[in-house]
């Protein structure tokens, strides 16, 4: 009874205190934002400059088109046309054709009754993938698709079990096409309960190689070129090395599955997102190991007897470079243009889509990184090249934009897609 009275008596006190607290908080916020904006304005340019991105000195960015429906990978022709693959097919337009007029792009047309990720041009053909097939379209001498309604089917029936089903593609210089087939599992534990060997590796978790000009191939007609790769989205052919490079999305949930071995902080930082240079027959070791980018060691996975300290068998492929956990590399591009300063030539740009599996730790990524290369090998630490895509809320649902695909234009500009809000950015350099 007394208790109730006391509470009623105190109610107005709470109300007033709450109001003051609320307003005090608001004041603080306003002041903070004000200061930030002011300092930015005086230091460089308004916040909206460079389409909201922060870039190294001398670079500028423009949002050349906005509000596309989840654009994934893209390719730019010598005539400044852009083919961009949407994750879904909207009204039979899974691939859009844009024309880049400099600082803005206009929509020309669209085709393909399938969504997907992979898209590239080689030897007079546009190659594109759905989540289970690879098609190609003959191009005319202006790099326009001659018959958008009648693609040739190169490969059909690739493993597609929903999880990690996007199929990125790239060609070499010898008539082969490479496609990633992601593992339909985080760490294979549901498929390998007795730890006898992960069966997912038979038809997924690797890169498959097919003939680029042979029609109607099945997965079994291809070569499992490299295995032990959990999921690759960003990949590119390095012309200097004449070698395939891929970016692997590392495993999730070390802490969730093994709270006694990994803290939430360790689970956010680990494992590394790895870059691999692949040769035929390579095995990167998923699901048996993960890479620790802080110790520079291949670690035995906890599902297979690891304890956070035991190293993995050295027979597995060493990564070419490693990046912090869960950054989600969705795009890889070797820069061969001449517009950017000399140090960028033959180096790698990586689009990091941004993390979700770092929760409850803060999310990271949501940026485009530059990895310097020397003599065809990663050389030194990566640099954040373009940042600010996410805006104030770096989280998967709160991010304004999330970088995904990368392409190089004929003048050496760099194009970046954002599959969250559908922006395409064009990044250029002027001395």
């Amino acid at each position, binding site marked *: 009874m*007394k*208790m109730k009275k006391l509470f009623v008596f*105190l109610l107005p006190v709470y109300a007033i205190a709450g109001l003051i607290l609320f307003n*005090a908080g608001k004041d603080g916020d306003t002041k903070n934002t004000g200061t930030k904006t002011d300092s930015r304005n005086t230091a460089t340019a308004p916040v909206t400059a460079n389409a909201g991105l922060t870039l190294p000195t001398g670079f500028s960015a423009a949002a050349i088109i906005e509000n596309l429906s989840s654009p994934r990978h893209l390719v730019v022709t010598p005539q400044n046309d852009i083919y961009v693959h949407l994750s879904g097919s909207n009204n039979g337009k899974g691939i859009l054709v844009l024309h880049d007029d400099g600082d803005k792009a206009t929509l020309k047309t669209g085709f393909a009754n399938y969504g997907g990720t992979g898209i590239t041009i080689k030897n007079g053909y546009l190659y594109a993938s759905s989540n289970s097939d690879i098609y190609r379209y003959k191009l005319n001498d202006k790099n326009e698709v001659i018959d958008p309604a009648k693609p040739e089917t190169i490969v059909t029936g690739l493993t597609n079990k929903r*999880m990690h089903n996007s199929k990125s593609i790239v060609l070499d210089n010898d008539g082969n096409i490479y496609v990633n087939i992601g593992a339909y599992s985080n760490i294979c534990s549901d498929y390998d309960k007795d730890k006898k060997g992960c069966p997912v590796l038979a038809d997924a978790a690797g890169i498959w190689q097919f003939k680029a000009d042979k029609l109607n191939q099945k997965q079994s007609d291809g070569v499992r070129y490299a295995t032990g790769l959990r999921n690759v989205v960003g990949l590119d052919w390095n012309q200097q090395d004449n070698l395939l490079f891929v970016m692997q999305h590392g495993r*999730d949930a070390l802490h969730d599955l093994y709270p006694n071995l990994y803290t939430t902080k360790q689970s956010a930082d680990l494992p590394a997102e790895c870059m691999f240079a692949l040769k035929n027959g390579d095995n990167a070791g998923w699901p048996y190991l993960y890479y620790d980018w802080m110790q520079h060691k291949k670690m035995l996975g906890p599902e297979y007897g690891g304890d956070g300290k035991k190293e993995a068998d050295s027979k597995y492929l060493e990564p070419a470079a490693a990046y912090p956990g869960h950054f989600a590399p969705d795009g890889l591009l070797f820069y061969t243009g001449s517009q950017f300063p000399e140090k960028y030539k033959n180096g790698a740009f990586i689009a990091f889509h941004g993390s979700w599996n770092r929760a*409850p730790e803060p999310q990271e990524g949501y940026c485009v990184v530059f990895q310097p290369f020397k003599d065809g090998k990663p050389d030194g630490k990566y640099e954040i090249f373009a940042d600010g895509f996410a805006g104030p809320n770096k989280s998967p*649902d709160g991010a304004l934009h999330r970088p995904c695909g990368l392409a190089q234009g004929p003048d050496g500009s760099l194009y970046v897609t954002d599959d969250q809000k559908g922006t395409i950015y064009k990044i250029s350099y002027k001395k």
Partner: protein
Amino acid sequence: MKFKIACLALVTSLFILNLNAQVRHPKKHSSSASSMARGKIVYSSICLSCHMAGGAGVPHLNPPLINTTYVLGDKAKLIKIVLNGFNEDVEINGQTYSNTMTPHSDLKDQQIADVLTYVRKSFGNKASSVRIAEVKRARATK
């Protein structure tokens, strides 16, 4: 300054209230409130890393727990998802989600009731509690 005084007043009065509560009503908690509190702990340690602190999930990968019949509808179905995991095509408000959810049958009935009560009453959701008996029933039926 205003801020400090307000904090002090709030903390002091809460302290007094709390003392009173402890002295006079040592066990006066509604069962739903404590189920929510326990459920939040389960959620934070098991669910949060995929479905996020605010239940919004991750676009294209992990489904949201807000404004969906998967959460607000049939409780038996919802309990089954926790017990058996989830590896089906799912479309919520026009978007699809591709990640596989692992089974959580190792959780105790109480924990499942608590965490689902928490999920059904949080993030703007306003659905009924999940009781232990309902979890037991779902566990017993195939």
